[in-house]
């Protein structure tokens, strides 16, 4: 049995454990509370039905999926661009860092859903409020990570480049930027997860009319828990996919070649 575990890939083992815990929880809830709790099999079957085109909160799953992805991509792009630019600028310009570095730290402490009243006051109910929540929530972790990396760029690398004849432009684009890349990727990874979680929460609360978060809460109101769970599974799978495909691919193309994982620590 131990040998079998050892041979399993790490992710497979995690999935098996998660599904087992879920199955046990479903049995336990039914046994002790008498409430039907969707099992992994029921959820999987409902997901297949939804993928086959079954209606969910007035639209197909694909419409909800597309809406969520569009909102996420827009909000995350705004957060990523502003967070990376801010972090790099504050890392290079001491006065900017001194004046502003506490702001992203402060924003980091605000939970995504706490932005709901601010978002509604600023933009009213709807699309723009959701985008604001995604962008403002993901900005903070990206900015903090990039600023931390930019401030700690090895001075000797900058000096080496200056000594080799680098001017300000070369210094920024060919030394400072690649030296900060590990922190940029780390910030994007955290920001990606944050923005995806806030998107779903914002869709549930702000009232977007479409989206995975919206359909999840609508299914719950109609006591269609299997569909709610199917939405959760879809949200989880998409988030996992983006983290693995986007960020890991970027890391493989850069950091893993510069210093393999075994030598980083």
């Amino acid at each position, binding site marked *: 049995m131990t040998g079998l575990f050892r041979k399993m890939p790490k992710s497979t083992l995690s999935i098996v454990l998660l599904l087992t815990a879920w199955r046990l929880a479903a049995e336990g809830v039914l046994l002790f509370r008498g409430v039907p709790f969707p099992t992994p099999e029921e959820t999987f079957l409902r997901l297949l039905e939804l993928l086959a085109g079954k209606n969910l909160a007035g639209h197909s799953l694909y419409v909800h999926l597309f809406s969520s992805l569009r909102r996420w991509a827009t909000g995350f792009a705004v957060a990523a661009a502003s967070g990376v630019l801010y972090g790099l600028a504050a890392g290079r310009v001491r006065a900017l860092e001194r004046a502003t570095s506490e702001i992203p730290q402060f924003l980091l402490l605000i939970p995504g859903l706490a932005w709901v009243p601010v978002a509604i006051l600023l933009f009213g109910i709807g699309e723009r409020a959701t985008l604001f929540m995604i962008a403002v929530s993901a900005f903070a972790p990206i900015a903090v990570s990039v600023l931390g990396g930019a401030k700690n760029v090895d001075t000797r*690398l900058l000096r080496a*480049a200056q*000594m*080799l*004849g680098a001017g300000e432009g070369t210094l920024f684009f060919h030394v400072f930027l*690649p030296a900060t890349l590990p922190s940029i990727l780390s910030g994007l990874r955290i920001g990606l997860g944050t923005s995806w979680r806030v998107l779903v929460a914002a869709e549930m609360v702000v009232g977007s009319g479409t989206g995975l978060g919206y359909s999840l809460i609508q299914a719950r109101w109609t006591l269609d828990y299997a569909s709610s769970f199917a939405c959760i599974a879809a949200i989880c799978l998409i988030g996992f996919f983006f983290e693995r495909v986007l960020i890991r691919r970027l890391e493989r193309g850069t950091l893993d*070649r*510069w*210093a393999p994982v075994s030598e980083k620590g």
Partner: protein
Amino acid sequence: MIVLERVFKSFPLDDGRSEPVLSDLNLTVSEGEFLAILGPSGCGKTTLLNLIAGFTAPTRGRVLFNGTEIDRPAPERAVVFQDAVLFPWLTVSRNIAFGLKLQGLKGKNLDEKVSRYLAIMGLTEEDGAKYPHALSGGMSQRVSLARVLALKPKALLMDEPFSSLDVDTRERLQEELLRLWAARRTTVIYVTHSVEEAAYLADRVLLLGPSPGRARTVPVPLKRPRNRRSEEFLATKEALRGGFPEPLCCATFRHSPHLEGGFRP
């Protein structure tokens, strides 16, 4: 020619005071000379090198290179750092090409020059395709040397470049450095805290005492090639040890394991 005129350098402390590191230092280094700077840890060896490199400015006094005051780093005063300081995101070949590209070299000429300097430093084309993390300490320092020698600097400033290497590699690289210096007659300023290294490499040694302002230069009256086991060489080492401008206390000695054998008061 490198000239230091009444150079004073201090660094600010947290309590508002400042700590002098170099005081009233006058020094002239002739073109083509090999000068070693020898002294215990914290005596200002690296600070002095940084002033000549243009990484920092003197608090008072002037540092001149060929009659012009040094105000910034430049390829004509190339630096080899203690830890190679290669750009980890560039392959060995691209590290060597970095400064050459900034001098406007490109295409076939650039490739040829990179290949030539790989060969000069005993590196293969295969090594050229590696990233710095895959190199040993000795190989990294070869690349670091190739990177600056390719720029044909007028002065080579070396900050304990071989101190972290094993004895065999260190001695081999010392030989290669002497061979290159003999061929090119580039001015070399070589920081070390090894008496033997200073006696073996230099024409003249600047002895820096632990107190700012206590410095003197001592010529090394040995013909090349030098024999590390000869009576003359051992006598020169002893003379250098005894030639410090002030007694080096036991505490200083404890912090400088390379000042082997201790100092006579």
